[in-house]
């Protein structure tokens, strides 16, 4: 089965694979919506469910400005001392919410994303894992042709600006406000990078988990642009994994936009170097098909772009500190 996928992967021309996935200017304009602050107002879709409740509690404890939630049929009630609404439109009108986090199970998750897009909410973070790919293709089709809403995920841990705003399931206490931008396809592997950069004293400005699904709302390049333009972000960690060509595309972007004397140091780790070919290791997106999407290709592409790629997941923080010291940034 894997061999024909391999055939197909060879067939798709390289120009389509690297650098030319369809980009719409309108959607790119929403990259700025990724910049969270202490004032970002957040609502929760799936508010009264088990996951929604647990993580909203955690978010409130962390200091995120949760302003309410959506649970169709429960509008008018209160939950966790916050108002519940029947729809995102109602919630936004009443609270002025900037962002929504979605904990709705897979059968209804795409509809929840659409509902938030209807309400023109600036940022949607969809945590749900297991949304059918066809559903996400349709969502993405709509997403790319508008310029009000940015989607992060699905199947992602979320996005956090340490000590300001936490939207997602990441453990807040390992984070520390600082100078590193972290972007990753993985959830728990992101926490490793965060933990390490906290331990070496660098801290983080913004951590974005873009998730492991093949059709999703935000990719590496979207986050890299935010990090490169943000004066507080002095270093970047990019965590990739086998499958697809997102890392190669990121490398291409860095070659064009992150060179010269003001280039920001980037450290990367690519998971799956030791994974046997043809195996799907958990993520829908993490399949090596036919020679492309393998870890070594990504490592090569990133190194060409001046990225320091570490072979050990335990050395991301150390490598970045070393490089930032070398550049007198830390």
């Amino acid at each position, binding site marked *: *089965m*894997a*061999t*024909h*996928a*391999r*055939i*197909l992967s060879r*067939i798709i021309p390289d120009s*389509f*694979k690297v650098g030319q*996935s*369809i980009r719409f200017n309108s959607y790119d304009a929403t990259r700025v919506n990724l910049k969270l602050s202490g004032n970002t107002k957040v609502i929760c879709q799936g508010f009264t469910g088990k*996951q929604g409740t647990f*993580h909203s509690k955690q978010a409130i404890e962390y200091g995120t400005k949760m302003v309410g939630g959506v649970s169709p049929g429960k509008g008018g009630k209160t939950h966790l001392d916050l108002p519940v609404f029947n729809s995102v439109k109602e919630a936004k009108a009443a609270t002025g919410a900037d962002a929504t986090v979605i904990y709705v199970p*897979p*059968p209804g998750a795409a509809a929840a994303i659409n509902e938030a897009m209807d309400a023109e909410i600036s940022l949607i973070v969809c945590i749900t*894992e*297991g*949304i*059918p*790919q*066809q559903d996400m*293709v*349709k969502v*993405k*089709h*709509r997403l790319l042709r508008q310029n009000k809403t940015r989607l992060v995920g699905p199947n992602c*841990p979320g996005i956090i600006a340490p000590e300001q705003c936490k939207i997602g*399931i990441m*453990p807040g206490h390992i984070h520390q406000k600082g100078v590193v931008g972290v972007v*990753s396809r*993985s*959830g*728990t*592997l992101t*926490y*490793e990078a965060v*933990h390490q950069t906290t331990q070496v004293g660098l801290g983080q400005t913004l951590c974005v988990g873009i998730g*492991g699904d*093949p*059709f999703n709302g935000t990719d590496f390049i979207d986050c890299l642009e935010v990090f490169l333009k943000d004066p507080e972000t002095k270093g970047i960690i990019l*965590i990739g994994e086998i499958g697809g*060509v997102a890392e190669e595309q990121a490398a291409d972007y860095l070659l064009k936009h992150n060179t010269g004397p003001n280039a920001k140091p980037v450290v990367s*780790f690519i*998971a*799956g170097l*030791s*994974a046997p*070919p*043809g*195996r*799907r290791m*958990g993520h*829908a997106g*993490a*399949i090596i098909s036919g020679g492309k999407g393998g870890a070594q290709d990504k490592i090569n592409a990133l190194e060409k772009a001046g990225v320091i790629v570490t*072979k050990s*997941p*335990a050395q991301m923080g150390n490598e970045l500190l070393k490089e930032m010291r070398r550049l007198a940034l830390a």
Partner: protein
Amino acid sequence: MATMLRSAVLAEHILLKNATKVLGSTTSNWQPQKQQTRNLNVHEHISYTLLKDAGIQVPKFGVAKTKQEAKKIAQDLATKDIVLKAQVLAGGRGKGHFKNGLKGGVRMVYSPEEAEDIAGQMLGQYLITKQTGEKGRICNAVMVTERKFPRKEFYFAIMMERAFSGPVIIASSQGGVNIEEVAAENPNAILYEPIDISKGLSKEQAEKVAVKVGLSSQKDKTADMLLKMYDLFCKKDALLIEINPYAEDAGETYFSLDAKFRFDDNAGFRQKELFALRDWTQEDEKEVAAAKFDLNYIALDGNIGCLVNGAGLAMATMDIISLHGGSPANFLDVGGGATAQAVKEAFKIITADPKVHAILVNIFGGIMRCDVIAEGIIAAAKELNLKMPIVCRLQGTNVDDAKVLIASSGLKILPVDNLDEAARLVVKLSNIVSLARDAKLDINFEIPL
């Protein structure tokens, strides 16, 4: 008589070569790849049935569970050229062999009696191919089909492709076994037609593809086939339908001579009928057991068992073990919502593998709470009476509670906070156990207080 025999052997030889190529199993730089699990894989006859039910022309075929059925199907096919295909979910069937000695999982036969005989030797037997490993896979059904003699061979596929943010038709007039070389040497021979998911595939667009690929004389029929293919693709939440070759036979009708499907696991909840077709007899028992508890488990060849939360971290854990000179025995992602029970089951599955000499638990708790993991580990270690060393590296939500639980359990679980150290330690320990086993020594680990 001698000439006939000789040509029969030659034809069989050619067919064998072609069959394996059609199955896509042998090209110059092909590596043996294990079956992708938890990604719905259906038997060939089901692929044929799906196409047939969608109105796409396939060769006449039947599925035999007994040799008598094989004979009957062969008789009904009323042709002297019959192909028997063992229904085993692995590539390389043509070149494989059965445990009872029968050579080849794809065989040409020339009479219903021969069909009965050969099918009888296939059914209930294990077929060993490059992809199945020494154990092989059980053959419980044989597809009996009329042999086609393809003249012109085309390639058609519809797949969900990241690069196009959606579905795309891929087509070529140079289909068949060498499609990969074609792609490498003559990329212009491959055409791509992205489909707008919101609009679907129109007749005009399908006709355009038919003409571009060189089938203007068959424009209507080809467009019709493509429309049906796309309809099937959407209806079944397929991620890929590949027909290679779509070929003209001597009678100038076009047939789909081989089809591969890949389905979206995430759509299981709304494709119950389709997913009920999953043949668990074709999958590794451990991986089947794991799926029952929503654990994502893939068996590998090494001797260090891994238990991790999150696919990325699990892969990274395998990477760091390799970096320190060790060899992971498995990939196992317990996921975000695992209970203590699931963790215990995960341990059972890992330790059921006799090759495992040491275990590394690497949990970074986000949704996953470390104390839940700790409870699971303790329960498992007690119930399974584990003798092998367990290195436990925990971080994140409720980590302090977890450490207290482990310390007060009195079990031989080594807590290590640093991932590098944890990996180094587990590799060392697994080497010690290996040496001890080689020397036939019993080994006991004590943790000094």
